């Protein structure tokens, strides 16, 4: 396979067209050749799977179009912008960096992400932030059912509404919601907003270029009733 290399003296953004260059070649370039501070443009993703996964350097990757499954998964340090919609599992297991989807994201956005920031301008599907482990997710629109299911750490900001069972079996992650949740999951509860919540929200919303008033959000966190086995609960949670 032809190996793509970069002339170190080139300062203009490097461009790939996925209708001309294979997905594997583009991903291999991003893994092997990408250097800190570099900007890469990727055109015509046409719903490709696993685009820009596993990046490890603080570079900028701009994808012009809709992507398929697992885009920007396992990201470390890179700033990935998807100007379009994302398929299932965008930024899945992200460790650090920033992933921005300007359209909507399908199911399991940011699943299991340990760190970094995922910004979705539109809606996110079901199970957004499932098993979240420390990343921050800001959704400009609404999220589907079972979002933040078993989320352990990190924050999920929902500017719109949520489906059923929001925050089911939460651990230490915190949810901020501006609209309505169809229902809260087991052990999730609304809690009083404190100064540190307003400060956190202000910072998260600013980063996502959203101008909502932090005071229009409510906080959801774990009631911690599931932390210990309760035989008297008769499995009724």
């Amino acid at each position: 396979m032809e190996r793509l290399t970069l002339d170190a003296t080139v300062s203009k953004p490097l461009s790939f067209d996925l209708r001309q260059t294979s997905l594997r070649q583009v991903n291999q370039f991003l893994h092997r050749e990408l250097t800190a501070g570099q900007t890469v443009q990727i055109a015509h993703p046409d719903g490709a799977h696993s685009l820009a996964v596993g990046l490890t350097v603080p570079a900028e990757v701009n994808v012009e179009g809709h992507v398929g499954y697992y885009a920007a998964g396992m990201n470390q340090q890179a700033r990935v912008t998807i100007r379009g919609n994302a398929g299932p599992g965008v930024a899945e297991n992200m460790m650090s960096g920033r992933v921005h989807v300007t359209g909507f994201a399908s199911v399991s956005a940011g699943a299991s992400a340990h760190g970094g920031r995922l910004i979705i301008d539109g809606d996110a599907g079901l199970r957004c932030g499932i098993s979240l482990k420390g990343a921050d997710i800001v959704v400009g629109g609404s999220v589907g059912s079972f979002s933040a299911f078993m989320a352990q750490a990190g924050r999920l900001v929902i500017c719109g509404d949520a489906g059923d069972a929001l925050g089911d079996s939460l651990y230490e992650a915190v949810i901020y919601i501006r609209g309505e949740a169809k229902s809260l999951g087991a052990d999730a509860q609304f809690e009083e907003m404190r100064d540190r919540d307003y400060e956190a929200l202000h910072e998260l919303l600013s980063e996502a270029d959203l101008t909502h008033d932090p005071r229009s959000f409510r906080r959801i966190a774990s009631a911690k009733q599931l932390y210990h086995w309760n035989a008297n609960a008769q499995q009724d949670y």
Partner: protein
Amino acid sequence: MCGIVGLLLKTPTLHASLGELMVPMLVGMGDRGPDSAGLAVFTEQLPIGELKYSLYSGRQVCDWAVLLATAQAELSDQATLQDNGNHAILTAQIAPDVFKPWLVQRYPQLHLLSAGRTLDLYKDTGGPAAVAQRYQFETLKGTHLVGHTRMATESAVTPAHAHPFTAGEDFCLVHNGSLSNPHAIRRKLEPQGIHFETDNDTEAACRFLEWRMSQGDDLKTALEKGFEELDGFYTFLMGTANQLALVRDAFACKPALVAETDDYVAIASEFRALAHLPDIDQAQLFEPAPEEIYVWNV
């Protein structure tokens, strides 16, 4: 895993290009379903009383000219036949309750894929590109269609187990997912005289919905009953003489995407199958919500 595609053309001048627009959609879902492919095409409606029967001979060679002559002699001298390898479409003024017993008696080796005034059906084993080429899908004309690429997970890889499944007249269904109670559905329907042709889970859903509609439900009411009775994971895409309908299970476990422009409504498991469509950049794209019923009319 399986792939589903659907296309409904709003603009009549595009009807001649239905197959051409669809083939890249079906081929684009080849990774999701490499073992079989199928297609139901809804064409111009025949006059009342006339019906089209899609027939399939599998690996056996059928002398379609002899079948036509026999049908003309024994059923209707106006019968016509259009053959395409091991598929053929017989068109005649013959009621299903006359044609089906005749076919079983005279041609027990043939499989009746569909019956209706608008529906032609093709399905076979092999990847979608090979199946599309085998039956010249790119030449097909019509108003709307439902297609499927199969990766079998619960029953055998045979043409009969491939999708679309049909029941009754001018109704077909494709499925991405797996049902957990197809046998219970079957045990409910069989005592009512409903005959099953395979052990496939999707056939149970197809026959359940058609049974509800034969009992007087409209498609929407039948689907609402389906939400209560069909257990498992599913994205179902259905076609009737003048509609496409789409539903997903409560957990939306299986993907679906809809693209709508002034000219068409296109449905696929993934955007990959839609990326080639004209004006896709201007299309309104959305993911269907779980347990919502989406219906588009021709």
